[in-house]
Each structure stands twice: as structure tokens, then as C-alpha cells.
């Protein structure tokens, strides 16, 4: 009992330090992005008024966006708004950035989540298999697949996928999240179309959404599978050369038990980090697949805003990306304790 109080204080202090680190990280990100945005040679005003607007119109919008204020004042105003949970309005559309991100993020979450399930579900077993077949045909096949998946531009895979599976075979839906005539039929509750359509009992919409999701998710998943399988193979090889593995084999354990029951158990923590990073990267960087498949997601929104110089939108996105990576790291940290008792 006497020791519980200092323990709680310790925990509180640890949480406090963690929160402070997160806040400083996010503030640093935003400050850097803000500064980059102000020196980038992209004029958001031109994107709004068009290249043929006269100077009077240009200056009117310039002032409306607050760009006539000193940079330090613009920064203070932005941070102040942020502290009031206001991400500001997108310069291009005048719509609240928070609303726009809330609209596009679920599309990417849906795509990215399916993709990481495919990538992890295929990549890990393939990596383990390759490690167990080291130097043999199975290993070479997996390594070539992995190299191909990682080296060939993902947009090429996307276009070939559309050509083969959509245009030639008719197996899947084309670009977009759903067939257009189903658009608007399901009320967006979560923004995840599969979930929303299932909850609404709109099974035709569900099937259409699935048919549109499967191809981009597979391609994105294949790209992450390539990376995950390579890393899994590397980690497994490092484990399989350990003495305890030799001991396990000598003891008569089956190959399956050695691979999955022993070696794999010791690489779970490392794989967790890899998978978390891969998922985070997918959520913020799937812009090429989103472009090929006309997927109205976060990657496209961020890229488009950046090219237009819409810094409110860009900074909102940077904040979200930062929070995603931080959250994924926190989840990974928590899962470490589950997978590796030594970290508890």
C-alpha cells in the first residue's frame, strides 16, 4: 500500500512525459510545415482567382486569406485556432478542413486496412516459408515476387490490374468506390462504405463496394506484402540460425512447431513495428493508387492541396498524419508488452 502511491505518481509522470513528447512532436511538425508552406513557390490565391484575374481581385482574396499579415502573426493565429480545435478553412474551397479530412480519411482507412490485412496475411506466411526454404526454389520464387512487388511502380500494377481484371475479365468494378448509380444510396455513418452498407442492409451496394475495393486493396496489399515478406524472411533467418532452434530440432519438434511455435514467436515484436509503419505509410501515401482508381481518399486530398498551396489543408493533413503515426506507435508499444513479457 505504501508503495502504491509513488507507483501511481510514477505512472502519471510517465504519461505526462509521453503527452508532452507528443505535443512537442506535433508542434514541431506543424511549425516546419508552416514555414515550408510560406517559402514554397505556390500561390494559393492564384488557385482561387485563376490566372486571368485582375490585381484588385487578387489582393481582395489575398487579404481574405490573411496572407497580408506578418508570417509570425499568421502562425500565432493558426496555433491559437488549433488550440481551440479549429483546423481552419481550406483556402481552395472555403470548407472547414476538419470536415474535408473527415470526408476523405475513411476512404483511405478502408482501403489501407484491407490492404494491410492482405499484405500481412500473405507477406508473413510467405516470409516464413521463404526462410524455411532458404536457397531452394520456394525461397527464390518468394524473393522474386517480393522484389517485383517492391520495384515495379505501383501505378503500373494498378493500370494493368484494371486492364486485366476489370476490362478484360470483368471480375471487378472499375474506378471509384462504388458503381455510380449506387452513389448516395447509403447514408455515410462511419464513412467506411462496406460497413455503412452492411449496417443499412443494402447488400447490392455492399457487393458493388467490395468489387471496387478488392483490386486496389490487393495491389496496395501486394506492395506492402513485398516489403513485409522480405523483412519477415530476414528476421526468421536470424532466428533460425540461433542455437535454441537447433536444440528444438534435435529434441524432435516438427518443422511447423520450430518455425511458428518458436522462431516466429521471437520476431513478432519486430514485425509489429514493420506492419505498423507500413500501415501508417499506406494511410498517408496511397496517392498513386487513389489516382488510378479515382479513390477519393486522403492521399489525393493532401497532394492536391500541396500542389495548390492550400496550407491550411496541408497542415491539417500533416497533423492527422502525425497523430496516425503516433497512435500506431502507441498501439505497437502496447502490443509489445503482450508479445514480449520482458518489456512489461
Amino acid at each position: 500500500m505504501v508503495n502504491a502511491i509513488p507507483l501511481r505518481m510514477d505512472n502519471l509522470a510517465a504519461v505526462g512525459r509521453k503527452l508532452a513528447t507528443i505535443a512537442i512532436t506535433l508542434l514541431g511538425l506543424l511549425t516546419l510545415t508552416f514555414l515550408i508552406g510560406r517559402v514554397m513557390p505556390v500561390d494559393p490565391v492564384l488557385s482561387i482567382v485563376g490566372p486571368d484575374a485582375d490585381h484588385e481581385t487578387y489582393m481582395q482574396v489575398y487579404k481574405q486569406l490573411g496572407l497580408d499579415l506578418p508570417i509570425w502573426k499568421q502562425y500565432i493565429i493558426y496555433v491559437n485556432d488549433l488550440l481551440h480545435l479549429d483546423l481552419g478553412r481550406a483556402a481552395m474551397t472555403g470548407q472547414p478542413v476538419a470536415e474535408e479530412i473527415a470526408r476523405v480519411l475513411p476512404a483511405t482507412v478502408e482501403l489501407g486496412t484491407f490492404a494491410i490485412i492482405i499484405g500481412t496475411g500473405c507477406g508473413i506466411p510467405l516470409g516464413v516459408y521463404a526462410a524455411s526454404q532458404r536457397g531452394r526454389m520456394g525461397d527464390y520464387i518468394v524473393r522474386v515476387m517480393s522484389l517485383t512487388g517492391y520495384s515495379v511502380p505501383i501505378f503500373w500494377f494498378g493500370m494493368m490490374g484494371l486492364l486485366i481484371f476489370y476490362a478484360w475479365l470483368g471480375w471487378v468494378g472499375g474506378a471509384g468506390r462504388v458503381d455510380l448509380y449506387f452513389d448516395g444510396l447509403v447514408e455515410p455513418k462511419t464513412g467506411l462504405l462496406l460497413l455503412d452498407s452492411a449496417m443499412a442492409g443494402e447488400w447490392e451496394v455492399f457487393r458493388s463496394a467490395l468489387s471496387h475495393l478488392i483490386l486496389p486493396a490487393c495491389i496496395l496489399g501486394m506492395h506492402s506484402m513485398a516489403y513485409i515478406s522480405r523483412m519477415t524472411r530476414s528476421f526468421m533467418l536470424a532466428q533460425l540460425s540461433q542455437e535454441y532452434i537447433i536444440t528444438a530440432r534435435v529434441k524432435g519438434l516438427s518443422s511447423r512447431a520450430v518455425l511458428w511455435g518458436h522462431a516466429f514467436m521471437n520476431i513478432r515484436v519486430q514485425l509489429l513495428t514493420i506492419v505498423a509503419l507500413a500501415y501508417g505509410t499506406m494511410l498517408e501515401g496511397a496517392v498513386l493508387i487513389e489516382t488510378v482508381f479515382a479513390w477519393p481518399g486522403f492521399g489525393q486530398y493532401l497532394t492536391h492541396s500541396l500542389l495548390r498551396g492550400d496550407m491550411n489543408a496541408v497542415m491539417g493533413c500533416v497533423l492527422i498524419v502525425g497523430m496516425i503515426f503516433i497512435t500506431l506507435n502507441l498501439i505497437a508499444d502496447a502490443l509489445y508488452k503482450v508479445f514480449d513479457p520482458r518489456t512489461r
Partner: protein
Amino acid sequence: MRNKKTLAVLIASTLLAASPIMSTAEAATPKDQLIIGMSMNNMLTFDPAALTGNDAMDVVSNTYEALIELDAKDKSKILPALAESWTYSDDGKKITFKLRKGVKFQSGNPFTAKDVAWSWVRTVKLNMSQASYWKTYGFNKDNIDSLVKVIDDYTIELNTPDRLDPKLVMYSLASSAGALIIDSELAKQHIVNDDYARDWLNAHSAGSGPYTIKQWRINDVIIMNRNDDYWRGEPKMRRVMIRHMTESQSLRLMVKQGDIDIAKGLSVADVNALKGDEDVKVEEVQKGNVYYLAMSMKDPHFQDKNVRNAVRHLIDYKGINDTIMPSYGIYHQRPIQLSLPATLPEPGYKLDVDMAKAMLSEAGYKDGFKTTIRVLAEPPFLQIATAVQATLAEAGIEAELLTGTGNQVYGAMRERKFEMIVGRGGGGAEPHPHANLRSLAYNPDNRDEARLTNFQGWRTSFQSDEMNNIIVEAAGEMDEQKQIKLYQQAQELYDELVAPIQPISQVVESVVVRSDLRDYVPHPSYTTHFRDVYKAR
């Protein structure tokens, strides 16, 4: 052995998982819905007074209407729309419109002259992108109220500050978004802080057009529903949907498969691949603007007429138009668009390296000089710039290509911080020579402080009082033959002065549509209507 089995199971289950999807893929669009695939990157607002770019015109031209419209097949022909008839005053300073009775807006509110007045005054007073056109005719916040006069519910007068060819004004009223008529009663209900309902009209429609905006998800989709009470009669398509698609090959596959009816923005390679395909047809429409090479006369090199003339003869017009421009543009070297009565025959400039070298030598640049060409990093601009770079080099002019987005290229042009630019512009939405010359050659004040950024003549620091006078005089000339002569004079002067913007090709837009689509006519002034479109199934 077991591992091989595991792999086989994995592959089989993946294929099996994919197979139930087979039956969900449906190819044809519904018979009563028009589905369009195009980039929505430039659709930032549907407020007629704030529209930028031409892509959003596809929406506002179908949710709103103007008093008049231009015939898509003969764009110089003015057709009645919300106005039944009109008269011009003899002094060229007043147009009186008799408005159509019995028209209702989508809200059910009656259309009257006060809506016209409110819409036009709004455009000028809001002073957003569409106000620029009005301001070039002398309208401003202080005089607009007095110049737009409501005579009665169905008669309205538009007075112009200066004497102007009424056809010019009419063409502008027919083709510019800022002249579209808004349901003022409905819009006024959404005014916040004297914003003229700008916030609300960004994403909602308040027009009398055949369609109304049901939903807009930015850079995703826009859904327009039919206005069942449309005064011309119910449109055949009950819904028009525009889906955001930027990847040309995806568009090509989708239109080929029949998942979209119209594909806009395909690359030339994809357009060419679809020509001859019986499932689709390629509609080409000539626009009024041009691809050009521009030189800045702020740069000492290009202040010399001999240098500009040398550059004029270092462009391989034929080669560029034959190899790069098919489906992007057609050969044209005049500052006034093709097919107008005033347009002179082509001057026939061609690549002549020896002549160019002689001119450069006379200017004191026997060994050439170094310069830069700013250009958009997309076709056909980059290809034109690359071709020009090669031919300039034959005469010793070393041009470095600086690629960028539209923002960066035209931004530099507006700031007068460039040497050469390969760009596209020159006005021309109105089928009138003034629309082109105003954009390319007019510059009443060449000082940096004047900041006449909407005039490309100012941007290139080109100023000729004689040219300005001809342009102003011609714009106010009522006699058609005299006007034609003045515009021909302007073109000859443009040649003689070796104006720094050299047109290379007149813009052509290619749109791919499904073969069963009928009465879809892309408009040269971007005001394409969907009201008559149907599918022959």
C-alpha cells in the same frame, strides 16, 4: 511437401475470394443517367460569380441560365434563353431585354427582372474572378447599380459606361458565368454578413436550369438531379453525375467498358487509341484560345524587335502541329481566333534558321544567348517547349526549360518575372476579335505599378498606343465592315510590331463519348448543355 500444400491453399483461396466478385461488375450506365468522368481538381466552387477555370462551367451551364446563349454549332449565332428578345440603342451604350414570362426557378420562385439585376450587380460587387470581364468593359462597384436598370418585371436595361459593339456585350453575357441568373429570393435567405450568399452558393444551386445540384463531394463526385418543371420541358436524363477521375487510362477503360458515358481530359495517346472503336466516338471542338510562345519585353534580349522576329522564325510550326498537336490544337498563327470574319489568312511563318541567325546577328547576338522557357509539366506544353528549345538552339539560343504547375508558370508571368513561356490563353470564349486582342495585345499602362495582370499584353510588357487605340475603336464600332477592317489592321500591326506572344496552334478539346449518346454537343465557349442529351438504347 506440407509447405507446398500451404502455398497452394493460399493461392486457391485468394482466387476463390475473388470469384464471388465476378457477378457484381455491371458494365452499362443506366439509360436515364448521364455519367461523366473528368478531373474535378478545378471545381472549387459553383458560385457563378467566383468560378475559375472552365471545368465548372459544365455544372453551372446546366444549373443556371443566362438571358441568351450561343449556338454550339455556330457560336456567333445568339439564341434567346431567359430573354425572348432584345434591342440595341443607336449609340451603342444600351441593350434592352424583354424577359421570358412564366419561367420559374428550381425553387418555384418566379423569374423576373430583379433577379437579373441582382445577379449582375452581385458579380461586380463581389469582385471575384468573374468580375474581371465586367471591369474590362468599364463596370465597377460604384456604377453598376446605375447601369443595370429594372424597367418592369420583364424588361431590363444594361447600359455600358462606354460605347461598345453590342454583339461583344451579348457574347460575354452568353458565355461568362458571371452573367448567369440567380434566384435572388432564394439566395437572399442565405446571406450571412453581407456575403451575397457566397458561402451557400459555393455548393448549392439557385438557378432555373434543367438540373439542380443534389450533392457535391469535393474531388469525388457531383450529382445533379433533373428539374422536372424545367420551362423547356423535362430533360431526358433524370440525373447527371460527374465523377472525379484524373488518370487518362482509367478514363479510357471506363468509357470503353461503358461505365461512364463521357470521358474528358484523356491524353492524346488514349484518344487516338479509341478512334475507330465502334463503342465510342471522339467529339472534337475548337476553342477560341491558343497555345503560344511568349517573350517578356522586360528582358533586354526581347526588347529588340530583331530578336523577337528571329524567335518567331525559330519555331517549327508545321512539325509541332503535325506531330505534337493532333487532338490538342490546329495550326494557327494569328492573334484572332479562326473562322471569324475579321481573321486574316495565316501569315505563313515557318522555321528558317538562316533568317533567324541573320536577324540575331543584326541585333548583336551573332553567337546567340542564354535564356529560360517556363512551361507546364504536362502535355502538350512540355513537348512544344522541348521542340522550341531544340530549334532555338540551332541559332545559338540556349534555352533552359523550367517546368512547374500552372500556379508557378502563370504566377511568374503575372509578376513579370520570366523570359519565355510556352502557355495557353488569349481569351476567346466570346466569338469576337476583341476577346482575343484584349487578352493578348491590349495594355493601357505598362508600368509595373499598374498591375494589369489580367492582360497578357501587360504581362509581356508589350505596349503600343496605336494597337490600344485600334482595339478600343474597334470595340465601339457599330458598322460591321468598318470593324472588320480595324481588326485586320490590328492583326497587320501585330505582325509588324512582332508582338511578343506568338500563337502556334488554336486549342482543340477532344471528348470521348459512348456511341449511343445523342445530342451531346460540346460547346466551343464551354457552355455545354445536357438538357437534350439522351441514349439511343
